[in-house]
């Protein structure tokens, strides 16, 4: 722990909801708990509107790092943040700042909505530094969760800058986070491996040029195997540096991103090739519905599946909440319930593979471990493989294969496979 880390205030929470409540209380900024459903959102929003009052000069990294970036691209975010401190800012200032936090100047014009989780967090750091002169405090939620461990240093740099300016830093984290001094890892029984056949024939994705409102050049991304493709074992871990293209690869496998040439697919022992995906920002997959409403809506045209998915959802929740009171109604409208319901809704269809993109986001390490372990257990019973996309090293103890993505050329990513 360095001097900057020692001087920041760290508050650890058991649940995402507890963290959000504290964030709202300490900053005065309303932040919705989306898994609570529409009614709760509008109630909270109108309360915030009714009680709107001038907040203190503060920089924030919101519980979802995307929400703290209110303008369309990094250039606008950084120039606007710099100008708040009375500085006359231009493209060069923004470029210097973005490079300081490990991002490239190419990202200045890239729409924020296309940045990866880690890149969003790093951009938040750059923005917070730009605001440092003007604000009195930085409140940061889960500030290193999305980052590759090699990039944790950028958080420390930011803390040091605030420390040097005699400004306060408050970090709000979930129990078990790497910033949590009392963190400990739960150990889980290994799940029996499930073989899967992953075929990658140099799939190429073209991202078209954006002309409007800000020009951003076209780009492309191609994936290739480092060695001969072959059998991989579920649960597997998909890992790599921030922005290397892990989430894009997941979307490619799930068939929701069109490829210009080549292909990538996965097949299980039954010949099934369906892939379902839980996004990094999985909360948006609830479509602003509470978990129970979501299940009713998705399975409205299939009574049998609805009964199965409800059972699966309850089983998952009970296995994660064992030892806690799962009768508490708040548990059933929490982010944990939202994730469990999305997982159940995907598992019930028995796909060949269920991909979980950063499944631990918004969960304490204990809950994340239990949720993923029980998901793997249930999935393997159904013949479904599980892939985990994450930077969190604790998954290494648990997974049977490791797929590592590495950028070897500007537009080429190589995937290497290691049996664990």
């Amino acid at each position, binding site marked *: 722990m360095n001097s900057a880390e020692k001087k920041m205030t760290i508050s650890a929470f058991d649940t995402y909801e507890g963290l959000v409540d504290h964030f709202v209380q300490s900053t005065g*900024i*309303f932040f*919705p708990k*989306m898994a609570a459903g*529409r009614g709760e*959102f509008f109630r909270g*929003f109108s309360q*915030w509107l009714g009680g*709107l009052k*001038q*907040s203190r*000069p503060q920089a*924030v990294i*919101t519980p979802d790092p995307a*929400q*703290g970036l*209110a*303008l*369309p691209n990094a*250039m*606008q*975010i950084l*120039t*606007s943040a710099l*100008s*708040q401190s*009375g500085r006359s*800012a231009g493209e060069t200032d923004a470029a210097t700042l973005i490079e300081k936090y490990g991002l490239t100047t190419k990202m200045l014009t890239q729409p*924020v*909505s296309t940045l990866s989780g880690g890149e969003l967090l790093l951009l938040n750091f750059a923005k917070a530094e730009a*605001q440092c002169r*003007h*604000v009195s405090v930085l409140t940061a939620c889960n500030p290193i969760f999305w980052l590759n461990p090699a990039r944790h240093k950028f958080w420390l740099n930011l803390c040091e800058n605030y420390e040097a300016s005699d400004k306060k830093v408050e970090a709000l984290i979930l129990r078990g986070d790497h910033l949590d001094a009392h963190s400990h890892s739960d150990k889980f029984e290994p799940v029996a491996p499930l073989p899967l056949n992953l075929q990658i024939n140099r799939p190429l994705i*073209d991202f*078209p*040029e*954006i*002309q*409007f*409102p800000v020009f951003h050049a076209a780009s492309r991304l191609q994936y290739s195997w480092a060695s001969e493709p072959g059998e991989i074992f579920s649960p597997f871990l998909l890992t790599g540096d921030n922005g290397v293209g892990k989430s894009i690869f997941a979307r490619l496998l*799930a*068939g*929701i991103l069109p490829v210009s040439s080549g292909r990538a697919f996965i097949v299980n022992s039954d010949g099934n090739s369906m892939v*379902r*995906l839980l*996004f990094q920002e999985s909360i*948006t*997959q609830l*479509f*602003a*519905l509470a978990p129970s409403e979501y299940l009713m*809506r*998705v*399975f*409205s*045209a*299939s*009574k*049998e*599946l609805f009964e199965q998915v409800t059972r699966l959802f309850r089983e998952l929740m009970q296995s994660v909440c064992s030892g806690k009171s799962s009768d508490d109604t708040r548990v059933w409208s929490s982010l944990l319930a939202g994730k469990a319901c999305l997982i159940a809704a995907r598992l019930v269809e028995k796909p060949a593979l269920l991909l979980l993109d950063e499944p631990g986001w918004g969960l304490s390490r204990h809950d994340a471990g239990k949720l993923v372990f029980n998901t793997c257990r249930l999935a393997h019973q159904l013949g479904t493989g599980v892939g985990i996309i994450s930077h969190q090293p604790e998954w290494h103890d648990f997974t049977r294969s490791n797929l590592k993505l590495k950028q070897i050329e500007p537009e080429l990513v190589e995937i290497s496979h290691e049996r664990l």
Partner: protein
Amino acid sequence: MNAFELPAFLKLQHLRPWWLKIAVLMLIGYPLFSNRPAAFIGAAMGQHLPETLGPMLAWPLITFFVWACCLPSLGTAKLLDYLAAAYAMAITTVVSGAVLRLALPAIFPADTADNFRLLRVYFNILAVFPYSLTFLNSFSVSNLMNRLTRTRGRFREAGLHLALALRICQHVGEVIPKMLLVWREENPDLLLPRCRDDWHGISPLVKWPMWFVRSISQWIFACIILTFEPIPVMVNEIEQIDESRDSDAPDKV
């Protein structure tokens, strides 16, 4: 990707100063808010064409004019994206209007003037959709905010409110592609639910419209909520600017 590059001076987002940009955009949009240009074109064409054809062709011509003005700013790919959404909206509106008139003639009586109105609505939607998105995105909120940080005076607060309103409108355009990706993962056929085991025989004829209407309501709520979601953070930023009054700032905007 764009097949050709149009000159930069034709791009509305590059027009300066801001009031000239507004004036040009208003001029382009004028035929959409007033009947006069269509009546004038219709009358001029009516001299050379059969009686109803002239006024009928006026609306497609105006629509093409608006598209042509938006094309250099948007680029071909984005214009086609906007047009795809506009066509879907226009066809849904016109077809549902026609169906209502057939099903409930007592409430929605059909006559030639109504047919003409429906045609006008169709072309209006096709033009208004890309035009309004071009209008909203031609202005940079960050430029406005930067300008406001260096100024004070009576227009400052109004300017900050305008910046917030403009950004919220722009944000809608960012929410929809994100939701579309989520929807595609959920329903790969887009217009059919992924799980439809209970749909046998002719039941889809009843069940599909119900599912479709529910999906539209779901989309509307999701778009509203996801658009509103970042407003508190945006307000916080606007407040920071409001607080950062620079003593050297001039008194007028």
